[in-house]
């Protein structure tokens, strides 16, 4: 009851922090898409490079986010950005890369070889093959990677509140330091809600972007 009153009294602030949160996640995922999708496509050409890249990606995923922020502070301090928005975006972007690269790579690799054979045999150039055949068919799997990245990033960004990046995690850090259950619950609830809404919207997008004629496939 008290939490509800707190929420109703602080709606503008909740809105503001939600916007901060979404801004960090979307900038990070946006950069990760721009870097990750071409990387995922490029590494399909060499098994060895692919293995290396995916291995490096998995290593990044095993680093706890709080440790990653710790590492970024001394590095970014050199340009006066040790804490705040920039390290938050960089860390979130690093976590978003692996699911996007891996899904893109897998989707393109698993394409029916007959399709590639047919496309080359009919005289498609490499870019025509990618744009007309390979990427459209791989799209649902690529978006699935983005979905995973977004959900991970909503969590990572919550922790970024510790390094002063703002966002919904601030309610939780303050809630802990001030032993204020209202703020704790507000942060937890809004974060959960944001993750669910983001996941469902991306699932909708995944279905919309599936090429027609392929919806029936699992």
């Amino acid at each position: 009851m008290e939490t509800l009153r707190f929420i109703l009294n602080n709606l503008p602030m909740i809105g503001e922090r939600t916007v901060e949160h979404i801004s960090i996640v979307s900038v990070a995922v946006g950069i990760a898409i721009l870097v990750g999708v071409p990387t995922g496509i490029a590494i399909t050409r060499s098994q060895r490079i692919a293995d290396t890249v995916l291995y490096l990606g998995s290593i990044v995923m095993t680093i706890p986010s709080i440790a990653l922020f710790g590492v970024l502070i001394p590095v970014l301090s050199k340009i006066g950005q040790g804490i705040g928005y920039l390290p938050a975006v960089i860390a979130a972007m690093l976590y978003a890369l692996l699911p996007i690269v891996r899904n893109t790579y897998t989707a393109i690799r698993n394409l029916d070889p007959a399709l590639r054979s047919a496309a080359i045999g009919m005289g498609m150039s490499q870019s025509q093959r990618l744009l007309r055949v390979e990427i459209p068919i791989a799209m649902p799997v690529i978006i699935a990677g983005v979905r995973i990245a977004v959900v991970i990033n909503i969590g990572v960004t919550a922790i970024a509140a510790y390094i002063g990046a703002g966002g919904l995690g601030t309610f939780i850090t303050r809630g802990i330091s001030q032993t204020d259950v209202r703020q704790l619950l507000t942060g937890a609830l809004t974060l959960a809600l944001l993750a669910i809404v983001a996941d469902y919207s991306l699932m909708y997008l995944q279905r919309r972007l599936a090429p027609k004629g392929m919806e029936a496939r699992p």
Partner: protein
Amino acid sequence: MIRLDNLTKVFATGQGGVASVSGVTLEVPAGATCVLLGPSGCGKTTTLRMINRLVAPTSGKIYIDGKDTDTVDPVALRRTIGYVIQQIGLFPNMTVAQNIGVVPTLLGWDAGRTRKRAEELLAMLALDPVEFMQRYPGELSGGQAQRVGVARALAADPPVLLMDEPFGAVDPVNREVIQDEFLRMQKSLRKTVLFVSHDIDEAVKMADFIAIFRAGKLEQFAPPDEMLARPANEFVAGFVGTDRTLKRLRRIHVAEVMIASDAQAVDGAPVVRTTDDLRRVAALFLEHGVDSLACVDEGGRAVGRVTRDGVAARLRAA
């Protein structure tokens, strides 16, 4: 016209090079269908894929209509060569119309012309354009998909068609039907066709020339009748089978061995048409214990007789 001149492909392996195709030389005249035949791993598919440069030859030349294909950009070359594969490879994200329109679109045809061409080809392949243009490959049966595959290869009216076991994945009943449709179409289109198969019956039915391969080498290149009558060596004889004379009968029509006469057939006795092949004649000879059959033309008029001696003389003649 397609000419292969000493075509060779050596694949590098851990234990050195392995010749998949060695020194193949042959010439297929324009408008003819040549079936590349042989057991699996004999180099027939590699030979085919060298023609549209999906595989780069190690040495040797390929000429299409007299032009050395080394001098043409591979991507441009492939747009002038129709390509059909056993797995069909229709793009699942495109409708039937879009699939057929792939090469025309690459060549910069406008949408109206591409669409008209797709409708024309579907009709030619016995698929109703109204029903099929907007379907997706996932909504087609195997036989329908393979027809669309052939339509797609023919879309930009290429002079040369490469077909890699095109009807191999279709069930036997449908395969006969599609083969017949293809033969009928080829009669008017007169494409230069190279067709990979491992099925001697299919080869005898479709080919103007058969090229038999073994272990990367061309063993014999000849019209089906000649190959069945005079196999060049033991391997070819074994591959075409001990019933090769029976297979020849399929390619010879009554009109070729008929003795013209206007004698009427005896009522109730079996008759053959001038367009029937000799398999039917032989079957009737055996079934009815006769040595001679009356022949009728398309309108059912008696035009001559076909005799056991006439058939035997034709089989000896080749």
